[in-house]
């Protein structure tokens, strides 16, 4: 058994990170007089501070934080745990949510002179809070059923945000999303049932010491993985994502694409690297990578043909998620997985895609607001009218294409080197082809926007500079990630050494 650390003041941060947004939700729901955006103005900075504090604690302490809830030890009780990767995800979520909140302050403000709350602002802010809580729980949880509850919180808040504008098309998208997500949850739960039937334990840390690669365990993990794939929209279970992400309000699309699809992927990582023993056969990893490759190639091609900007960005999300699944065969090998460049590259891809994609969706939101549509064919003149948004889109595009300097370039270079070093040339070829296709769709948008044309004079007041700067800041972070050193980070290994 691992030594069980006692709860201390630092580890209480984990509890607060999960509960603070829920407290915000309760304040919004319980007190109509407080306008929800005002509650968010308090809760969001506090939440960011909590996430940063966790990262600092984990980094300086050099070890994972634990909190055992109600002093009931697992397997009976539940605990929270933050290692290096969780801390990174926590800060990533906090920053993206902060950007989404800043971007939406004006759009989702309760109208002047109304004593209570109104539909769209209340729904947006309360669901944003719930989603944040659920994300933090996914990143900090240790218990397989606890994850199920977190995933359901995530689903309900995401689906509600998707159909916020109430148009029939987005209602259809939300329904399809909900059905896919529910199917995913049930398959995941089926796997949890089998794991419990086999071991009588749901805590990942304890399971790691017990698991054997027998049929029940492998079938259970396979079912959970398929369920999570449906939620992470890995090809070919991606059909729900483009209409849903394209139909949501821009800030919601940004959070959905940057974070919500990453949560189930994070759980797949936990299952495959932290729960299972090193697999006897690399076949499963190859299969996941093959699906990822399918996503990169096919969905990039589909993105190239989209007439609407938001749909193009959404298809690009599915393609970029494909890259994440390349890391399964690439992190295998003689080294501990967190010391491989395949692992580092995968995590860097996750983080830089989150920033780049959030920037893109918010830029698309600004463009649609200004022009009244997002048809790429009618973008001529846009660069003159919205230079900051177009520049942000271009910088974010740099990262998606994998051109230097950008986080995407470093991530893809690391994955490419890992593929070359392990002789998996087909993966290297897919990474290169994916980069070219991404260049194709990014330049298609930029080319249209740079052209001279009437969009420069279209009506409507220009967006406030503050909102444009939020978008630019996100894109600049995606670029700045290009200056991280090209080697495994010690931070991502914190808390993993205890796992043999």
């Amino acid at each position, binding site marked *: 058994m691992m030594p069980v650390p006692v709860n201390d003041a630092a580890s209480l941060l984990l509890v607060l990170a999960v509960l603070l947004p829920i407290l915000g939700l309760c304040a919004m729901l319980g007190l*109509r007089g407080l306008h929800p955006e005002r509650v968010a103005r308090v809760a969001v900075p506090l939440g960011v501070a909590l996430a940063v504090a966790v990262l600092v604690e984990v980094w300086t302490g050099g070890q994972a934080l634990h909190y055992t809830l*109600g*002093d009931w030890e697992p*397997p*009976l009780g539940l605990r929270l745990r933050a290692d290096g990767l969780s801390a990174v995800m926590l800060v990533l979520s906090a920053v993206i949510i902060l950007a989404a909140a800043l971007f939406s302050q004006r759009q989702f403000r309760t109208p002047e002179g109304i004593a*209570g709350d109104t539909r769209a602002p209340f729904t947006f802010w309360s*669901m944003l809070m719930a989603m944040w809580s659920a994300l933090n729980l996914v990143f900090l949880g240790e218990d397989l059923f606890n994850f199920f*509850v977190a995933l359901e919180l995530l689903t309900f808040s995401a689906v509600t945000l998707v159909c916020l504008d109430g148009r029939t098309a987005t209602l259809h998208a939300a329904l399809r999303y909900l*059905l896919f997500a529910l199917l995913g949850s049930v398959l995941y739960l089926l796997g949890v049932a089998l794991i419990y039937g*086999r071991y009588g334990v749901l805590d990942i840390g304890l399971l790691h010491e017990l698991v054997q690669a027998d049929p029940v365990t492998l079938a259970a993990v396979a079912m959970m993985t398929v369920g999570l794939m449906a939620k992470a929209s890995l090809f070919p279970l991606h059909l729900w994502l483009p209409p849903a992400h394209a139909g949501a309000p821009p800030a919601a699309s940004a959070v959905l694409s940057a974070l919500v699809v990453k949560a189930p992927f994070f759980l797949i990582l936990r299952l495959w690297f932290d729960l299972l023993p090193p697999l006897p056969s690399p076949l499963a990893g190859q299969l996941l990578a093959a699906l990822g490759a399918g996503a990169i190639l096919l969905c990039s091609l589909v993105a190239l043909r989209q007439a609407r900007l938001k749909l193009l960005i959404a298809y690009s999300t599915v393609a970029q998620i494909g890259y994440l699944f390349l890391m399964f065969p690439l992190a295998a090998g003689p080294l501990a997985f967190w010391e491989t460049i395949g692992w580092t590259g995968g995590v860097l891809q996750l983080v830089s895609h989150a920033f780049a994609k959030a920037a893109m969706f918010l830029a698309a939101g600004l463009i649609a607001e200004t022009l009244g549509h997002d048809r790429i064919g009618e973008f001529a003149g846009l660069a003159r009218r919205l230079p900051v948004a177009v520049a942000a889109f271009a910088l974010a595009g740099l990262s998606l294409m994998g051109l230097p300097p950008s986080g995407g370039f470093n991530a893809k270079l690391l994955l490419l080197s890992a593929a070359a070093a392990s002789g998996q040339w087909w993966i290297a070829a897919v990474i290169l082809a994916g980069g070219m296709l991404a260049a194709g769709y990014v330049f298609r948008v930029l080319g249209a926007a740079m052209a001279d044309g009437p969009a420069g004079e279209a009506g409507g007041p220009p967006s406030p500079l503050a909102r444009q700067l939020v978008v630019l800041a996100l894109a600049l972070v995606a670029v700045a990630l290009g200056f991280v050193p090209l080697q495994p980070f010690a931070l991502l290994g914190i808390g993993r050494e205890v796992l043999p």
Partner: protein
Amino acid sequence: MSEPFALLLTLLVLLTAGWIVTVRERRAAVFGFIAYGLLLALVWIRLAAVDVALTEAAIGGGATGVLLLRVSARLGSIRGMSAPPGLATRWIAGVLCAGVSLALMALVLALPDPAPSLAAAAMEPIGRTGLGNPVTAVLLAYRALDTFLEIIVLLLALIGVWSLGADRFWGGEPAAWRTGPPSPALVFLARVLPPFGIVIAGYLFWIGADEPGGKFQASTILAAMWLLAMMAGLAPPPRTGARGLRAALVAGPLVFLAIGFAGLWWADGFLAYPDAFAKPLIILIEAALAVSIVAALALMVAGPAERLPRR
């Protein structure tokens, strides 16, 4: 009552399930689903899980049934999610799903014997909670965070339901069942049943600490009584923006959190109870949760606001 009964029950459950997915009429499928919920409750009793049986009968059969009946009565045709599949698709799906079932059966038979269990682990410290029903101990002590989040799931679903109403009705009354004056039979039921329902709910709530029963089952019955009164026009549905209603909805989570955080000072940490006061604290949490659950369940079935708020 033993294996032949279990076999009969298995066949009935599977036949009903098969009927629900193959019957032609939508309404018939909904009725079939309500019967299916009751059959499941019997299965749960045979599995010696009386707590679950009560929950299944109340929520799985009852609340879901009323909800689906209300929806199917008003639901028109919807542009298909997909066209009706052809014979080939159905055969492929059938073979695939049969394969899944068979594989799952093999896995069930492959589960280890004797089975791993936390029963002993759950009974050992149960004295510290002051409870007699181990299921309640799991829900409110060992895995209290799950239960807390489950209430939040209910609230989220309710906000989701509300958000589907129109902007101008936000904060107004749900207008379910406004198809003419209520029938005398309904009014009769709504007058006669609630006293019984309240007594039964109180009983279930109170014994939940030591015997099968508890807040979910009790709350569902209370919510059903409230809905009955709303349907019969005896109690107007509450405005979704009413202060009292909003307070009721957050009462459960807030009391839960307050007692949870108080554990930092008077016990060993968040969500820990001091041994001497564990039982009264747990009952206090359950009572507050029950208030929130009744409100959330009833309003979720009633649907989004469809009438202007009264100013």
